[in-house]
């Protein structure tokens, strides 16, 4: 359940960047290949933000799909999880998108 640690990381980062601010909304980007489950973040958000500047804040998550490029045939494709293999059979790929795990913006009162 590292999603709890992830929410704690969000609380920490916001407190560091905007000390003392009362946050009303947090917008996160959690890519499909990030290793973090957005639903689990939603599940523990309320609990993990209790007593912090994010308490009561609305949580908005966008979930970019995974996108890879094959180094063998050059095509760009959306991988089927969990194996990041190209339809041509090659596993020699570069991940272009889907590994995002970031706070894009917050709203403050």
């Amino acid at each position: 359940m590292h999603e709890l640690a992830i929410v704690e990381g969000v609380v920490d980062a916001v407190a560091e960047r905007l000390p003392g601010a009362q946050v009303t909304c947090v917008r996160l980007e959690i890519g499909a290949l990030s290793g973090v489950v957005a639903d689990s973040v939603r599940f523990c958000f309320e609990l993990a933000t209790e007593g912090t500047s994010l308490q009561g804040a609305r949580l908005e998550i966008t979930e970019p799909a995974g996108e890879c490029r094959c180094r063998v045939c050059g095509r760009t494709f959306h991988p089927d999880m969990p194996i990041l293999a190209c339809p041509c059979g090659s596993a020699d790929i570069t991940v272009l998108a889907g590994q995002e795990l970031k706070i894009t913006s917050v709203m403050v009162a």
Partner: protein
Amino acid sequence: MCATCGCSGGAVVRVVDGQDDQNQHDHSHHQHGYDSGQPAVAGHRHTGTDADGARTVILEQKVLAKNDRLAALNREWLAERGVLAINLMSSPGAGKTTLLERTARELGGRLAVIEGDQETTLDASRIKAAGAAVVQINTGAGCHLDAAMVAGGLRVLDPPSGSILVIENVGNLVCPALFDLGEAAKVVISSVTEGADKPAKYPNMFRQADLVLLNKTDLLPYVDFDVRAHAADLRRVSPASLMLQVSAATGEGLSAWYDWLWRRTPPPADPDR
């Protein structure tokens, strides 16, 4: 609750002194932090204000930025000191501690270990008995080590130049994959008493592995484990990972593991310099 690792009780770095726990020193990892090198707080952009007077602040910041910063400081410190650091991960019971016991005995004093477990100093006592310097980090409810805990452990352990430091992560194939500790390489153990499909089931973990040790090969005659299927799954998930077959119990195959370590270990600093 701990803001770093999400654990409820706060992680504690314990120095295990011989067999008895009376001489432990506790260092809360919450108090760690480098005296210098803390990056300045980054700026942020404000955009418009809405009808309620609320304003949006663009942050565009990685959630794990703080951990990544501390990991970079760990990595820098380890490189300057000339210490090879390995992040060792596996599911519980795959043989991490048994591998380290034998490695400690057979490398003769060059091994130092940071032990991560939710509770107890049992593993650290085993490593200590095998002849390696060790600190135990108990993560409480936490399911992984993070860079801050390792920084605390490094300060207590103070590994000498030219040593091999293995950070034995909490037994878990999910959460530790996300947290950079400042290691030079990641090693994942899978064992023949688990399913051969572990690489496919836990791709985030195996994708990052520089080396995969397939352990407990002495049990292959007694279990239904397809080594070739495991190797094929690993190649599909992580084509760049090297796989070695070993038995930490009998020592079979371990010379390749030691060679792998030695090739990466910096020579000890010359004390006369």
